[in-house]
């Protein structure tokens, strides 16, 4: 549950955003990112449904690679 997941912002509606990671879409709260403008196309680190911080696309990609590795091992 402590796993942060990088997601790409698709749409922003007030404090809520529609985000996507690996083809899965989720509603994410931007309520904790009020000091920074978030726009579609941005990447955010998401934890339990809340964006903790903005991040670069490159960093998001390398984190996803890591998760692929974990998912592959998770059911071992």
């Amino acid at each position, binding site marked *: *549950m*402590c*796993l*942060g997941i990088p997601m790409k912002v698709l749409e922003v509606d007030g*404090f809520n955003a529609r985000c996507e990671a690996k083809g899965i879409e989720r*509603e994410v*709260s931007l*309520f*904790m*990112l*009020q*000091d920074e403008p978030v726009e579609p196309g941005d990447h955010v*680190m998401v*934890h*339990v*449904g*809340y964006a*903790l*911080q*903005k*991040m*670069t696309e490159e*960093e998001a*990609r*390398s*984190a996803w*690679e*890591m998760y692929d*590795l*974990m998912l592959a*091992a*998770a059911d*071992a």
Partner: protein
Amino acid sequence: MAEEARLWLERIRALPLRRRVRLMNVCGGHERSITMAGLRAALPRDVELIPGPGCPVCICPEEDVYEAIQVALHEDVTLVAFGDMLRVPVNVPRGEARSLEQAKAAGADIRPIASPQEAAAIASSNPGRRVVFFAAGFETTMAPVASLLVQGAPENLLMLLSGRLTWPAVAMLLDSGTPGFDGLIAPGHVATVMGPEEWQFVVDRHGLPAAIAGFTPASLLAAMYSTLRQLLDGRRFLDNCYPEVVRPGGNPTARRHLAEAMEVVDAAWRGIGVIPASGYALRPALAARDARRVFPSYADASRKRAGEMPPGCDCAKVVLGRIYPNECRLYGKACTPRTPVGPCMVSDEGACRIWWSGGVRDNPAA
């Protein structure tokens, strides 16, 4: 990324280490990356990576889980909790519900959730019921919980809070005189929320090197390199190897929400005891939402092994980095993810569970 990780590994291998060095991580996410990427086997023999207090589910007080079970047994209550919490065992006589999962099987309305917003949604769609959110977690989870409360949640949503701060557990280990490690890999997402400054004490007060790491092998290896290099050079500083999201001061909004909704209190860690200023409690202004005030106390001094780990389970020692998971006699024997004995095998962030998923099958203790 793989290329970057390989470069860091080469740099570490080139270091003239002359003695054994123990590096502790304090984050289940770090331990997962280390284990799944096979970093232990890739590092020089003299570098030991010790999983420390990085699992909030593992140290959630046994009494709190017991209380959650009792609260959930009320007719008009729906209890929601992060999925991991449902299988955490408490010490009760045969015949009583040993976990939230068993209470659920016996008819209690208990639902796993993945986000605080789900708790609010369940409360909204069940206005006639009291929805109790049993929330365990570290700063990364408590900040979203605080945000939810600050933003405004349905009146029938109550909180049973078991939030903990990570750094005080490390401070306790360091103050004990036998910390068991020579350098610290500090948790990247905790620092994202709270700011890197929280970890400065490791360097200033205890003279140990520390580096904040992200969750990719490259970031973790960079942090390991930094701490090893500091040890060799006789320099000490707090390095930030996750600057993409860890900024000075952390996330100011998140910290504001935490301060508004919660206060920091002395708090018990399962199997370990009370650690000063290591827990979150709801502020008095939120008393009407506080399940600890709304429901009677279920603390029962006569309940056998209240507060302790299950019999035979060495989770407390695993959490403190005193032993490796497979040094517990039950590891892989009586205790596997299918039949977990202790919380460290239940939780996705528990070191026992992570090591088992990572393929560690030997048990030198059995």
